């Protein structure tokens, strides 16, 4: 997968968990070179905004992911 697709793959708020429940870094993030990780921050922020716009309560994907764990 090239860097452009790795970046997009790391944008999702979905994160795997290990057997202890620890949230694991995205495999795509681990494969990204450092400079691309700076770009990832901006892309994540933009996608969180898109998620807020599309959610009936205005929740970002991060908020939705946490809410699925606590409620």
């Amino acid at each position, binding site marked *: *997968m090239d860097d*452009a*697709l790795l970046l*997009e*793959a*790391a944008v*999702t*708020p*979905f*994160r*795997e968990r290990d057997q202890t429940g620890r*949230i*694991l*870094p*995205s495999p795509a*993030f*681990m494969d990204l*070179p*450092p400079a691309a*990780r*700076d*770009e*990832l*921050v*901006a*892309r*994540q*922020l*933009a*996608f*969180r*905004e*898109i*998620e*807020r*716009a*599309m*959610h009936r*309560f*205005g*929740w*970002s*994907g*991060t*908020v*939705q*992911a*946490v*809410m*699925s*764990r*606590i*409620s």
Partner: protein
Amino acid sequence: MTEIDALFATARSGDPMAFAEWMGRVERPIHASLVRFARAVDIEVVMQETFLRMWLMATRSGRGLQGENATLRMALAVARNVAREELRRAKPGRDIPLEGMEDAPEFAVEPDPGPDPGLARAIQDCIERIPGRPRAALELRASAGGARPDRDLAGQLGLKLNTFLQHIVRARKSLADCLAGKGIELAGVGS
């Protein structure tokens, strides 16, 4: 008591909706505070773990927080600690200078003013103009709310993962062009 601290106080009674609203109000400043760690740790991990710890603090701890925007300041401290934990787990290499990250200067972080209905409407309008598969991919991922991996979402659309991601990249670019036409520049959406 500030608005965000009042939301957190309501969450203390076990109200997850108030907690969700509180998260929405502190999410951007917490994210901004973590940018200095971005080359070494997955900020999304830090964000979710920080919120889970704050939920435990809200619902299982009787500890009171004092001062203006105390809950935001506590969340920033928790996020910093989680980021440091992730830093210790991170494997140095690929020219990532881990040493300087913890020493980077703190900066003032203000609470979020709240939702921007105008921006949300503009995004919704522009998404409706994105054609075909790119729009379907973008909408499916945005509506998944972090509950499903992209591979599953791609399968639902009958696509391979790479193709699904390429459609999202195209959708982002269409969205950026449309927003630019409305005079809105959303950093990161079209890059």
